[in-house]
Each structure stands twice: as C-alpha cells, then as structure tokens.
C-alpha cells in the first residue's frame, strides 16, 4: 500500500467509476414511492398527540363534566348546592373552555407554520433546528395543558376548602383527607404518565437529531 495522501486521492475519488444504476423509468417510479423518514414520523406522532389532547378537551366541553363533577364532590362533602354556586362554576368553566380552545387554535396554527417552515434544501444546522423547533411546539402545547390542569386543580381545591369554610360545613376529617389525597394522587399520576411518555417517545425521536446537532456545535466551538 503506497503512502496515504488524502489530497492526492481527490482525483481518483471524483473519477471513481459509477455504475449507471437506474434508468429514466426506474427514476420516475421512485417519485411515487412512499417516503420513510423521521420528519414524517414526528409529524404523525405530533398529530396524534394534538388530537388526543384536543379530543379530551372537547369531550369534556360536550359533556360539561368538569362543572357537574366538582359540584358532586362539593355535595358529597356536605356543601349546599346553591344557584349562585352553580352559576359561578359554570362561568369559571366557560372561561376555561374558551382559554383551552384558544390555546389549541394558536398551537395548531404554530404547528402548521413550523412544519411548513422545514425545508430540506436548507443547510444541515438550520434543518435540524427547524425540526427540533417543530417538535417543541407540540411539547409546549402539552406542557401548557399540564400546567393548566395543575393550576385549575389547585384553584378548585382551594375553592372547595373556601366554600366549606364559608358555609361552615362540618366535614369529617376522613372525607376531607380523602378528597385532598385523591386530588394529589390523581394529579401526580397524570403528570407522571406524561413525563414517562416524554422520556420514551420524545427521547427516541430527538436523540438522533441532538447527536448530529451536537457534532455541528462541537465543530463550531473548536476554532483554534
């Protein structure tokens, strides 16, 4: 084997015999082929996540469940279900639904916009960053929904305790403890499940992108 010199191999590299593998017809057939690519997978996973979260929201809106289920909890604790209380709950839930739908509408728009912004002919770094940014839109949507869930649950728990106090309801310690523990456990479980989902699905999807992005960043930080 002669002494290795990369520069001297340039010519041989460029002139390496390339078999003409495909003719016109074969190339034209490729244009109708089904694409198997990461962005497509990320897109469909994101659409599924969007639909899932939105479907849950819409289900509750159609059923009007939040309001009545909270009122049932209050009744079980011995609180008087007054008309004023019902109206207050209905109004609060209406505001929440409008807020939730507005958030969804905004994110669907951002999702579409970021997806359309991914252009394969861009440089590698921008391409990877745009894919990550696109996925982040969906993550932000889910995160906001979780924050909203925790905030609403906390506010209603405080509100329940406030009503119980205002109406001087005698609540047994065990019911009150059961109520609080139930809410805490269900909230923790919901958050835990979402976190686990992210560790698995998001981790797998983004690992490859991060690996390539880190290589680019490493190269750009080595100037000497």
């Amino acid at each position, binding site marked *: 084997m002669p002494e290795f010199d990369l520069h001297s191999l340039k010519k041989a590299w460029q002139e390496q015999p390339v078999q003409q593998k495909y003719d016109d017809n074969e190339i034209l057939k490729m244009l109708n082929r089904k694409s198997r*690519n990461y962005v497509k997978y990320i897109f469909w996973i994101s659409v599924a996540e969007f639909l899932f979260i939105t479907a849950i929201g819409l289900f509750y809106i159609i059923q009007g469940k939040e309001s009545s289920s909270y009122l049932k909890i209050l009744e079980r604790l011995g609180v008087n279900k007054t008309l004023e209380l019902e109206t207050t709950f209905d109004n609060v839930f209406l505001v929440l639904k409008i807020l939730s739908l507005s958030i969804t509408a905004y994110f669907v728009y951002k999702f579409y916009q970021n997806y359309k912004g991914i252009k394969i002919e861009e440089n590698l770094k921008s391409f990877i960053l745009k894919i990550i940014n696109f996925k982040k839109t969906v993550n932000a949507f889910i995160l906001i929904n979780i924050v909203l869930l925790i905030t609403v649950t906390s506010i209603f728990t405080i509100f329940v305790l406030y009503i119980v106090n205002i109406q001087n309801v005698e609540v047994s310690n065990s019911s009150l403890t059961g109520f609080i523990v139930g809410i805490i456990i269900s909230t923790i479980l919901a958050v835990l499940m979402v976190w686990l989902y992210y560790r698995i699905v998001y981790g797998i999807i983004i690992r490859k992108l991060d690996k390539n992005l880190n290589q680019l960043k490493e190269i750009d930080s080595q100037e000497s």
Partner: protein
Amino acid sequence: MISKEKEFAQLIKDNQGLIIKVSRLYTNSLEDEEDLFQEIVLQLWRSYDSFKGNSKISTWMYRVALNTAITLFRKKSKSLPTNELDINHRDFVEDDDDKQQQISLLYTVIKTLPNVERAIVMMYLDDLPYRDIAENLGITEVNARVKMNRLKKTLKEQMQKYA
C-alpha cells in the same frame, strides 16, 4: 417539450454519482443503500420546484442528499459497530489497482466517522470550496477548515491501521 418529470430524471441520471456516494457512505447494507438512494431522489423531487433557479445544482443536491442521509433516513438494518465494519465489503470487489483499493479502503474508514465529519470529508474529496462546505452544514468556514485538517490526520492513521 420535455416534461418536468423527464427533465428531473435526466438531472438525476447526470448526477447519480453524488447520490450513490452519499448512499454508500451512510449505510452498511445494500438494501439500506438502495433505500437511501430512492429516498434522496424522492426528497430532491419534492424540493425540485423550490430549487429551480434559486441556487447551484450542486449546492441543492448536496444539501438535500446530506440532510436526507443524516437526519431523515430511517435505516432498516441495524448499523454495525466500527470494528465489525465489513472490510470485505463489495467496495473491494473488482478493485484492480492501488488507487481504487485506496478509495475502497477510504470508504470503509470514512464510515467510522460521525455523520457530520463524513459529510465534510466527502465534500472535501469532491473538491468543494471550504465556503460551500461550511454553508451546506451551517458552520463557519474557518471551523470547516480546522476540522478538515484534523480529519486528514485521523484518516491517515486509520488508513494505515486498516492497511
């Protein structure tokens, strides 16, 4: 009048070498290589309208081919660890002189590098200016040059090791 599809097919035929090289550098099996080739052609077709007249053919082709190979493509077969790389890969078949043997070995050695470094070496060997290499990857020209100088040393060591 030539249809858009025919025009595109001709363009691919004229530039098959570039796509074949990328497909070979980023896969370890013939099946994956064919798959990657087809995926690159498909992505080129999908971006064909936005390319027309906007940039050089080579810039557009390198970017689409490398973005597809590095970021988009899902391999069917599992990638092999470096020490198991098929040194007797068909790259060696039909090699009849030292230069070609070195090119075949070069393929094997480049495949041991991380994705981005493979791209830098390939574009260097294809004689792209550092400015274009840097622009295609989104790094600075100085860093592309520094990295390539280090890669020359690494490749030399690896080539001698494998030889």
